[in-house]
Structure formats: structure tokens, C-alpha cells
């Protein structure tokens, strides 16, 4: 019996001790007519060897593509040590550190994470993770609305990842928060600041400011922050953590800095992993610490005066405050925080800065190579971090499909989410891309683009 340790004899002894004749008797409180739980479409159990064979075959089936997709999660080099340590049983199979004395390992690590993350953002406080970037943004919107009690209007620019906007909408909708989109300049690709300035002072709870924005472009965060604060709105920064090793952090935006900052922690040592698990981070100024959701670890002492760590400010959380909690979140993304913390330690501030710089550098090369191709143009001249948009003279989906047949994931087709940009392609080269790979991409793209202007490529003919 997989994972069940008892022998027949032991089962008998246990049943005798309980004074029942068989295991079924233990289910006697279940009304008889409900005893119908038989599983019919679950396959029979197979051995680890057989499951392994299936999984290996499926993982190979999915192949290996050279990746130029970003759009919120990014391929980075992850030092081997990160996951060898993270999957140690003592981290991997522990529960949430509710019993502090039996969980000092996880707790100290979380405290160290909070230190690194809040400092990376130049804010006072970090929580110990939320699910992922988009839902973290939703939580930030709710926290801001709580902080600005009577207000329910939150401004989200269209330069925020469209999926993030959808997630926020799904989550905050029920609490009657009004999300107001503001447009961007189609030439610059950044937030139209005049629209923001046009709001009435005191009418807006918060303004979301992305850096870089979904197009990979750098927003004028200082002006935006000051403008939002002018309205008496909180500023919710939405940032890429890798970028923050290089760029001015939200706590230093404008005159007073952002108030709450969230984002996707995946770039910090977490694999792309077909979609998750990732981790959301959230930092804030001290004065909002009681408004934010998620666990927080504090440093304290034990009764002998030794340094120790424990979960703190639990009165914000559901297990204490129940219907009045700041959020319903309970299980978070703890193990991803372990990975992120080890990742940051291994890279150090200098290593992280170099990663950020190399990403920018490579994307620069990518843009140069791609826009050298006939029919490929840069969409915006605005400075970017490690991602940017090019415009093609052909439908992006078809081009991406053809390039995929060459083992390359070329980027994200923006034409559905941003029809105003035309045939727009969001593309990215992190530090993991070599110049050879970039050139290879450009060569294929060139070939595909020039052939397509005459005739659709064969991959298209077959698949379409």
C-alpha cells in the first residue's frame, strides 16, 4: 500500500484496540446512503518507475525553445545551489512557522528576506509573500482602499500588464472598488500624465505606477508619484525586482516615494515552470503595516534573552481576525521565498546589478538586430529595461508560429490587447540569451518576414 506503513498484523491490533472489527466500521457516522464514494475514472495506481516514464516522456514532448518571451516572468540563470538547498526536507516539508521554537530556520530566513526585499524597494516593511504578482496588486489596491477609508476609486494605467488588470478586476470587483484606467501616449508608450492630473484632489484612493511598464518601458515615476500624491492618493508601485538592482527604487520616487509596492518575485531564482508557482511580494511604509495582508516575521527574544524570530502582527490575519482580516490569505508561497532569499544571497547586490545590466544590454542588441530587418520597426524610442515592443508589417501570430517551428519563442503578440499598436510584438532578452541566439532569431525572422510578404510559410500552411 503506497505510503501506508502498517502491516496487516498492526492493522488488526489497532482495530482491536479501537474495538471495531474492520476499518469500514470507523465510517459508521456517515449516513448510509452517502457511502457511494467509489472512484470510477481515477486510474489504478502505478509504480514510481511507471509514473517516471510518463513524466519524462511528457516533459520531453514539450521540447526546448530558445526563449524571448517576457511579459511578467523571465528566464534567468538560477545558481544550482538555490534549489539544492530549497528542496532540503527541512524547508520543503515544514508547515507555516506557527510554532516559533520549532521553526527558527524558516522564520529567520523570512526575516532576512523581508530585510532584503524592503531594502531593495527602499521601504520599511515587507511581508513574507503573497501568491503572485497580479493578485498581490489586487491586495495592494484593497489595502490602499482600506487606508483611504471613504474612497473606492483606484487608478490603473493601461501600461499595466493586461492580465494583471483582469486579475485585479476579478478580485476587487466584489468589494465595490472602482478601477479607472488611464491611457498611455501611443508614441511614447508611457502613462499620459495629464489624464492623471485631471482627477479631483481627494477623489482617488490610489494610483498604480508600474516600473518598467508592460511594454518594458521606463515610466517617469518621479512626476507620476508627485502627481498622485498631489491628489492625496497613495502610490502603489508595481515593479520588477531585478530592475530594482539598477533603477531607483519606489521608496525614492518623487518627493515622498511610493507608499506600497508589489510585484512578481519570480525573477529572483524561481523557474518559469510552465506558469507557477511564483511569488508576489509586497512592501510598504511603516504607517501602512497594519493594512497589508500576509504574514510578517518579527525579531524578538526568547525567555533566556536570546535572539529569536516569530510571526507577528497576526491580528491582521484570518486565523485571528476572521471576517475582519486584511485578507483571507493563509497558505502563501513560502518555499519560493526560500529560493528567492538564497538567490539574492548568492548574487549579492553587485551580482544582481550585473544581471539587470546584462539584461538591458542584451535587449538592446536584440532590438538592434531585429529592427535591422525589413518590415520590423521599433514601436517606442522611450528608454526600456529588458523588454520592448517592435512593430511588424505582418500579422504577429503567423510570424510567431513560423519562428516557433525553428525552436524559438519570439515574444508576445500584443495585437489583441493593444489593437492601437498594430502588429506589435513584445520581446525580451535576459542575461541568459547569447549573442548567437539573438542573431539566430534575427536570421530566422528575416527569412520568415521576407518569404511571407510573397507567400505564407509552410509551417503556417500545414498547421493553419
Amino acid at each position, binding site marked *: *500500500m503506497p505510503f501506508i506503513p502498517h502491516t496487516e498484523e498492526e492493522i488488526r491490533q489497532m*482495530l482491536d484496540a479501537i474495538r471495531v472489527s474492520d476499518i469500514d466500521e470507523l465510517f459508521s457516522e456517515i449516513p448510509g446512503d452517502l457511502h457511494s464514494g467509489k472512484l470510477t475514472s481515477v486510474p489504478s495506481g502505478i509504480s514510481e518507475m511507471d509514473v517516471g516514464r510518463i513524466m519524462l516522456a511528457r*516533459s520531453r514532448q514539450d521540447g526546448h525553445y530558445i526563449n524571448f518571451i517576457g511579459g511578467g516572468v523571465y528566464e534567468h540563470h538560477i545558481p544550482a545551489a538555490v534549489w539544492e538547498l530549497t528542496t532540503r526536507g527541512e524547508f*520543503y516539508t515544514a508547515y507555516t512557522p506557527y510554532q516559533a521554537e520549532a521553526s527558527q530556520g524558516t522564520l529567520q530566513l523570512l526575516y532576512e528576506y523581508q530585510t532584503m526585499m524592503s531594502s531593495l524597494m527602499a521601504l520599511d516593511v515587507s511581508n513574507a509573500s503573497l*501568491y503572485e504578482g497580479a493578485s498581490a496588486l489586487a491586495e495592494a489596491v484593497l489595502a490602499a482602499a482600506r487606508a483611504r477609508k471613504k474612497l473606492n476609486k483606484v487608478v490603473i494605467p493601461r501600461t499595466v500588464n493586461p492580465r494583471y488588470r483582469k486579475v485585479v478586476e476579478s478580485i476587487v470587483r466584489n468589494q465595490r472598488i472602482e478601477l479607472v484606467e488611464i491611457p498611455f501616449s501611443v508614441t511614447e508608450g508611457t502613462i499620459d500624465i495629464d489624464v492623471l492630473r485631471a482627477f479631483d484632489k481627494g477623489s482617488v484612493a490610489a494610483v498604480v505606477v508600474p516600473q518598467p511598464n508592460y511594454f518594458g518601458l521606463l515610466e517617469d515615476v518621479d512626476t507620476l508619484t508627485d502627481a498622485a500624491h498631489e491628489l492625496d492618493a497613495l502610490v502603489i508601485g508595481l515593479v520588477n525586482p531585478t530592475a530594482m538592482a539598477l533603477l*531607483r527604487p519606489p521608496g525614492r520616487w518623487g518627493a515622498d516615494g511610493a507608499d506600497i509596492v508589489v510585484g512578481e518575485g519570480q525573477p529572483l531564482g524561481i523557474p518559469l515552470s510552465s506558469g507557477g508557482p511564483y511569488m508576489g511580494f509586497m512592501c510598504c511604509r511603516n504607517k501602512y503595516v497594519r493594512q497589508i495582508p500576509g504574514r510578517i516575521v518579527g525579531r524578538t527574544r526568547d525567555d533566556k534573552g536570546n535572539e529569536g524570530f516569530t510571526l*507577528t502582527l497576526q491580528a491582521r490575519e484570518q486565523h485571528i481576525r476572521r471576517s475582519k482580516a486584511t485578507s483571507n490569505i493563509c497558505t502563501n508561497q*513560502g518555499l519560493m521565498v526560500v529560493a528567492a532569499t538564497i538567490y539574492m544571497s548568492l548574487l549579492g547586490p553587485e551580482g544582481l546589478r550585473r544581471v539587470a545590466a546584462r539584461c538591458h544590454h542584451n535587449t538592446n542588441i536584440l532590438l538592434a538586430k531585429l529592427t535591422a530587418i525589413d518590415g520590423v520597426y521599433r514601436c517606442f524610442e522611450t528608454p526600456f529595461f529588458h523588454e520592448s515592443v517592435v512593430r511588424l508589417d505582418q500579422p504577429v501570430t503567423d510570424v510567431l508560429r513560423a519562428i516557433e517551428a525553428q525552436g524559438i519563442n519570439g515574444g508576445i503578440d500584443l495585437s489583441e490587447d493593444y489593437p492601437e499598436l498594430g502588429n506589435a510584438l513584445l520581446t525580451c532578452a535576459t542575461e541568459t540569451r547569447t549573442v548567437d541566439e539573438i542573431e539566430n532569431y534575427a536570421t530566422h525572422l528575416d527569412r520568415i518576414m521576407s518569404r511571407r510578404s510573397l507567400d505564407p510559410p509552410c509551417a503556417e500552411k500545414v498547421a493553419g
Partner: protein
Amino acid sequence: MLIFERSRTGCTNPSQAPDDDSDISGIPTSLLRAEPPIIPSVSELQTIRHYTSLSQKNFSIDTNFYPLGSCTMKYNPRACNKYAMLPGFLNRHPGSSDRTGQGFMACMYELQEILRDVTGMAAVSLSPLAGAQGEFTGVAMIRAYHDANGDDQRDQILVPDAAHGTNPATATMCGYQVREIPTRPDGDVDLDSLRQTVGPRTAGLMLTNPSTLGVFERQILEVAHIVHEAGGLLYYDGANLNAIMGKVKPGDMEFDVIHMNLHKTFSTPHGGGGPGAGPVGVNERLRPFLPIPYVIDDGGEYRWAVEEDCPLSIGRLSAFMGNAGVLLRAYVYARLLGREGMQRVAEHATLNANYMMRCLEDKGVEMAYPGRRATHEFIVTLKSLKDETGVSAMDVAKRLLDKGYHAPTVYFPLLVPECFLIEPTETESKEELEGFVEALVEILKEAKADPEMVKHAPYTTPVHRIDEVKAARELDVAWQIPEN
């Protein structure tokens, strides 16, 4: 010692970072960072030693019996980790086309089907990221359903007083008012109260069955009837599904919507706090509202459902594809167990709990619901000990750590005084169960002989009793560079 205290500016790990020759002239200097963040500059070896040593300060399933009630701390098979972390899955960008993810999606699709069968529901979406997000999803669907029916006066969600904190918190997040339903002394829901509370304002009732009291709600069909009669829907908090897999299906108990905690029943690791996965299952009437994405088998090709497939969907709850890696682990687990294995999980989880309960009872330990069968967990109350000696359930819990056992869940559910919610799980051996019983009985003796000693436990852990009050009063949540 904190890792920052080992940091020395200038110490770098060049094999981990690109060379310092990148051209960043394209970024306006006004946007560049001035001061470096407090991230330690330490060597690889220092990092490894530091985090290896931290890991050793944890209790975990791999090191200790961990009978944490409601948390299902069972063995996390290593195969699940290994096969979920195959490079093909790990390196795949979620923005890649469905064409390049058929292997991965086949696993997801089959997992949906398995969970459908286990729960007896009509359809499953894997996307919620944990139990609480599953709850949110479920209640949001309930709301969407009523809204779609124009039934918009329903502004209340009912929860039993024994419910987990996420239930009322979720209801609030979905914009509902929470009404508590009391529990009878025998552990079942008070039907009279329920009847008095339901009505036209009732959107639904959230219930865990087996309940958080470690007993099976015997009147479940009655409860369902009452709520449905009033036009409300029935939500199943699947945190305790481990107790009934292959025995009873929530669908058969007439639940309309359910979430599962794969990090419990399907044995994905808790990871010191997460990640989990909280898939939802729904019956036919809620199917149109399922969150996206979920996998559709489109004539032999798998693809993610998008808005167009389900215009009534409550939408997206995360930017990408749920906690995919967690779902892969659950899939491997499900295949290893198979249908017989799943049923055995419920049987042996129940056997273990009843055996421990009986052993403790035989040694005079007081049960909160003495006449009842344990499900996969049960509740001990130490109220009389507290009255007699001043030693609290928390003190006993801390003392258990000294004996090498992780403490059970304490002070939950809130309605039982000085309680331990004990969930041994099916993967623990008879020897472990008996060791725990012995340790607990010994501590109860110690509490009588030397209450002060127990009140200051633990003694063998890396730190002694932690001062939580100080932590909250003198908030220190991030290390600062000491001034000198």
C-alpha cells in the same frame, strides 16, 4: 547570526553573475539607483552553510512527526518533486503557445478529471493558488450565479462557528456579510439555529465535512436541504477531504461548489508556508462561472480555456497558470496512489486517528467529543489540566517539542477551550503514534508534578520560549545596518 552580519562589501561570486561590461547608457542616469540594497555580499560557501544551518533549525515532516490538525502533514513523496522538476516542465515559459505544452497540459487535464471523480463534481478548474483562493473563487462563483439570476438581495454567507478563519475572511473579501451558525455540544451544526438564520438574504453556507471538530456532520443532507430550500448554495471547504476520499463524495452530499487543498490531501509539500494549490470543483449550475484558465480537450489537442470559451467566468485569479509545479506534484501523487490508494488514504487516516484517540482515552486524556468517532483527526481538551495546574494547552504544546514531536494545532477551533486538534495522517507508523501518546501522557504527569517546568518549555529547541508580545510591541521586521 544573520546573513547580513557576515556580509563584507566587495565579496562577490563572479561565477553567478555576468561580467561587468554591459552598456547601460540607454537608461537615463536620473533613473538609476544610488545606494545599494541591503543584500549580503557573502561567498557561495557562506551562503550554503548559513541556509543549511537554518534549515536544521526547523521541524518538518522529514524530521519529525507533525500531527498538526487541519493541516494534513503527511509524507511528501520525493518522486513528486523529482518529476515536477524535470527540465522540460521547469524551463517552459507560460507565454509559450499551447502547441509546445501538450505534455504538461495532458497532466493538467488528467488531474482535472481525477479531481472531478474524487469530488463528484461536474467540472474542475485548477487555477486557484491555495485553499483560501479556492474559497474566494467558490464564493465569487456563488455571487456570480445569484447575480446572473438577478438575485441580488442575497448579501450574507453563513459559516459554522467552528469554521476555519479563511471562511469568514473569504466571505468578506467577496463583499458578503458573515453570519455564524452555532455548533451543538455533540459537534454537529445546530439545525434550529440554521433554520432561523437562512432566508432570502442567504447567498450560501460554507461547510467543512468532516468538520474542523474532527467529526463527520451527520445531518449533512438536512443542512443541504435547508440551505437549498432558501435559495442558497452550499460551499464545501475541502481541507478535510483526506478523510473521505473514495468513501463519500462532496457532490453526493449535495454541495454545489468545493475547493480542495492539494497541499493537504494530495500531499504536495507545505514548503514552510506554501505554495499550495486550491482547485475548485462545481456542479452543473456553477460550471459557466469557473475561473480561467482551465484545460480543454479540443479534439485531441489540449488548450487553455480563454474568456471567449466562458463568457460568464468570474475571470482570472492569477496572471498565469495557477501553481503549475504544485499541480504536477499532485498529479504524480494521484497516479502513484490510483483509485485504490486514495480510498486507502481515507481509511488509514481514519484508522490512525481513532487508534490514537483510543490510546489517549485509555490513558485518561479528555476528548472534546467523547461519544463520537474520530474522522482523520480529533480534539483533546486540556481545560481541566489548566484549571488544576495552570498549565495551558500552549505550554503542553511547547513541551512536546522537547520530546521531538511537533505540536498539534492549538486553540483551534476556537469554541473548544484549551484544545489540541490532532491529525496523525495515514503515513505515520503505529510506533510513531504510540510514541506521541506516551510523550503526551508523560507531559501531563510532568504538568502535575512540576507545572513551572512545563510552563517554560521548550528547552531543547534552538531557542527557548519566544516572546511574541515583545515582537508585536517593539516591531522589528527588517534588519538595519548598525550605526557606529
